[in-house]
């Protein structure tokens, strides 16, 4: 496969490409789904092909084929060159700024204890049906859906830089949802082994079965919970929930391609423009955002990105101030950086690499603080667990989020479950209200498996970590028809 990648690069170079890379990716996805006590789907998908990308005449060309014979690869390489020549008809006056990166000849592998594809289907199904039985055993629960997904991406990358990389990345996740049906409505509750780059040991180490009764019970309780009040409340957001708020209000706003207008027609742009770099007060002084594509379990950790840049860790927001962005080799010049942070990924061999969110985390508090102590310190608030409804404008300013489960906090104590909670805010005002962070003992990453961006749309994965955090006086309950 390496030889075939190198062959494609050589063909493109011979035809005049000033830069070329070729990626062969072999992808295997295994999906299992159950509904109550039946297995509704077992699907084992394999896909393999090559994507060839070139810069020529100051323009991009990209062609991909699932045919991995030499003739087809040569044809695709020629096609990518022809596409670039055509693209030069409306190229940027100063062409493409392509940041240098040392040549890397290396291999990368997700540390895995148990290969999920080696685990018999019967074992996985047994676990899923066992969970379902427990959930359905709770009075009032009418439905249980469960889902497992395992993915292997075996990737080869060669480029005219002299880079030659082989990476083998494995992702595992499992999730289930209980639905309680009442006379007039239905409510749900979910639990998951959040998506991680890890083997089946991640599924085994997550108490999926042990939590099943609690999850079912909370779905039933959700039916008769008090409606969300309307007004301003302090919010305690758990890592399972905050991951999505971070993703939408920080992650996308700090992708440099969006900031530069390259995504304007689809995913949108950003309020966090480069003239504000180093001065924009994104949040309160205790807000520190660190990007990190080096920790092995992060979904964006793959050794090297699809630009051939080694994965890195860097500060993006320090003491509440925007100090950096997520960058790729094409965009980093715009902020004066000589080297990309390595945030360029494609969702398949058939897709051109684009700038994607990295893994990133809200750093935990430095002083010891448990979630119980945080609740005890909150007079009038709502605690939110899990992801729910999420919507944000195309510059990432005005947002509205829901969640999966909600509890009212009164005078430092949990006062019962709420339903239909939503909160609305302006991004910088929301992060400016951050006033407490639990410490690192409670810091945990959560995965996002379906981040949509690009045109044609691509789906990417990344992890966002935090500890339980408190936000003061956020508007809740405005989501009424």
């Amino acid at each position, binding site marked *: 496969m390496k030889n075939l990648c190198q062959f494609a690069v050589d063909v493109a170079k011979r035809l005049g490409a000033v830069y070329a890379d070729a990626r062969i990716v072999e992808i295997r996805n295994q999906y299992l789904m159950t*509904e109550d006590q*039946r*297995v*509704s789907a*077992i*699907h*084992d*998908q*394999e*896909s393999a*092909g090559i994507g060839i990308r070139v810069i020529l005449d100051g*323009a*991009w*060309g*990209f062609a*991909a*084929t*699932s045919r*991995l014979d030499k003739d087809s690869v040569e044809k695709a390489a020629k096609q990518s060159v*022809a*596409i*670039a020549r*055509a*693209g030069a*008809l*409306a*190229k*940027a006056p100063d062409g493409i700024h392509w940041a240098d990166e040392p040549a890397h000849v290396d291999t990368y592998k997700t540390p895995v204890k148990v290969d999920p594809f080696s685990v*018999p*289907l019967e074992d996985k*199904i047994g676990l899923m049906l066992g969970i379902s039985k427990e959930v359905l055993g709770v009075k009032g629960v*009418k*439905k249980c859906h469960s889902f497992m997904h395992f993915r292997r991406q075996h990737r080869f990358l060669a480029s005219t830089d002299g880079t030659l990389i082989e990476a083998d990345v494995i992702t595992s996740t499992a999730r289930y949802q209980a639905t309680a*049906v009442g006379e007039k*409505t*239905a409510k749900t509750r979910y639990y998951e082994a959040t998506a991680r780059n890890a083997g089946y040991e991640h599924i085994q180490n997550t108490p999926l079965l042990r939590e099943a009764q609690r999850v079912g019970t909370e779905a039933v309780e959700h039916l008769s919970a008090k409606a969300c009040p309307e007004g301003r409340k302090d919010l305690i957001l758990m890592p399972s929930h905050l991951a999505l708020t971070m993703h939408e209000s920080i992650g996308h706003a700090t992708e440099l391609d969006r900031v530069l*207008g*390259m*995504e*304007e*027609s*689809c995913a949108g742009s950003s309020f966090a423009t480069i003239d504000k770099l180093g001065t924009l007060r994104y949040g309160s002084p205790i807000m520190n955002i660190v990007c990190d594509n080096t920790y092995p379990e992060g979904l964006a950790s793959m050794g090297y990105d699809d630009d051939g840049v080694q994965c890195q860790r860097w500060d993006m927001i320090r003491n509440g101030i925007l100090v950096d962005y997520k960058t790729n080799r094409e965009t980093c010049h715009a902020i004066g950086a000589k080297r990309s942070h390595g945030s360029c990924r494609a969702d398949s061999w*058939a897709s*051109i690499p684009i700038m994607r969110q990295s893994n990133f985390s809200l750093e935990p508090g430095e002083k010891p603080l448990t979630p119980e102590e945080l609740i005890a310190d909150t007079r009038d608030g709502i605690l939110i667990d899990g992801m729910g*409804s999420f*919507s*944000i*404008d*195309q*510059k990432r300013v*005005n947002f*509205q989020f829901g969640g999966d489960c909600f509890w009212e906090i009164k005078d430092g104590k949990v006062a019962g479950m709420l339903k*239909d909670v939503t909160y*609305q805010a*302006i991004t910088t005002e929301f992060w400016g209200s951050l006033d407490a962070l639990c410490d690192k003992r409670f810091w945990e990453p959560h995965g996002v498996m379906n981040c949509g961006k690009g*045109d*044609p749309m691509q789906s990417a994965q990344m992890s966002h970590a935090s500890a339980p955090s408190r936000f003061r006086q956020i508007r809740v309950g405005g*989501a*009424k*028809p």
Partner: protein
Amino acid sequence: MNADAMMEILEKALRLSTAEVTVAALRGGTNASTRFAENVITQSVQKTEYQLSVECAYGQKHGAAATSNLSEEAIKSVVQRADAAAKASPPDPEYMPPVEKDESGKYAKVEAYDARTAQTEPRERAQAVRKAVDRAVAGKMRISGLLAMEDEFHALGNSVGLRAIHSSTNAYCHVTALGDNGSGWAHQCSHRMGDIDLQATAERSLGIARLAQNPTDIEPGRYTVILRPAAVQEFVPYYVICDAKATDEGRTCLRGKLGQKVCGENITLRSDPSDPRCPRTPFRHDGLASPTLNWIGKGVLENLATSRFWAKKTGRQATGYPANVIMDGGSATDEEMIASTERGIFVVRFWYIRTVDPMESLLTGMTRDGLFLIENGKITRPLKQLRFNDTVLGVLSRVEQIGQLERVENMLMPTIKVREFHFTSTTKF
């Protein structure tokens, strides 16, 4: 890949399988696009991709596998993997035997392939972008967008003799135009590239963007709105086509409403894969014919999306899921609708619509790329973008006027005028 080659691959997969029942599907083709932003081409791509899916079954035990590799060895492997998955699976009480051979007689005649579209070259697309960019530059504005074509096929076969094949092309463009302080958007979609006029689309988006400069504040609240077809397409289909099983089990907003009035009598939502304005694949993934029916007819919920299993259990007709969605349109032009509005808001499109409460069909989302105040029958000023929270069924009960149809993706939707649409907050631009 021609039809003979597709069928040969399917037959090979069916022959190699020793399962009691086998269903094989092959889909794929070529997708090419030219993307631009800030008045330059930023991405030009072409991909050719195939996927062979095989489902095997023994009694009620079933499992599926897929591959992008169409070699003899890979076909053998995908059949083996599907077979292994089926054997490992416990019996599924909802498994249905394969669709019978004579179902193909129910397939609508669909003309969705245009050879000229399939032959579009990257240079043609780049030239069209160049011309559109020149218009933007002349107007001291910037454009971003995409011009794309797809050349695809779907082929299906099963072990009881059903064979189906359908080829289609698709062409589309969309353009976002920006001035210093405001944006506009326009789009076009057809199965023929010859119908796509990127320059005209760019001109429309530039016109909206010019009007949208320096937007002004407005208090959120309940307003009469005129929603352009792209906004209707984003909003309406969410909860008007619900799964029958989930609905009967009390898990959707349409529970207990089959045969009842669910919205205004002026609303008819239907599917028809043979509609020449939006032709779509005449069969679904299992071989069932794509439905041609009303989902909502004159405000009454006539059909739910019903699987073959649920149809058998409830004695209803199996519908499967739709290939397209069409809302019956009217004759009013956008201008006539604006002229008849004393005070309201004109919405070009929505963005990031998400469900807030599925049991109430409550959605939230933002307006985007063109929002204008209407006063005394005229557009008077651009507005800063607004967030809404409103229900689909509520909105469809408050439609006062229905305009002309436009194709948006796989739907035909009209401009509609709705009273008391609920905006709940504003943003900064």
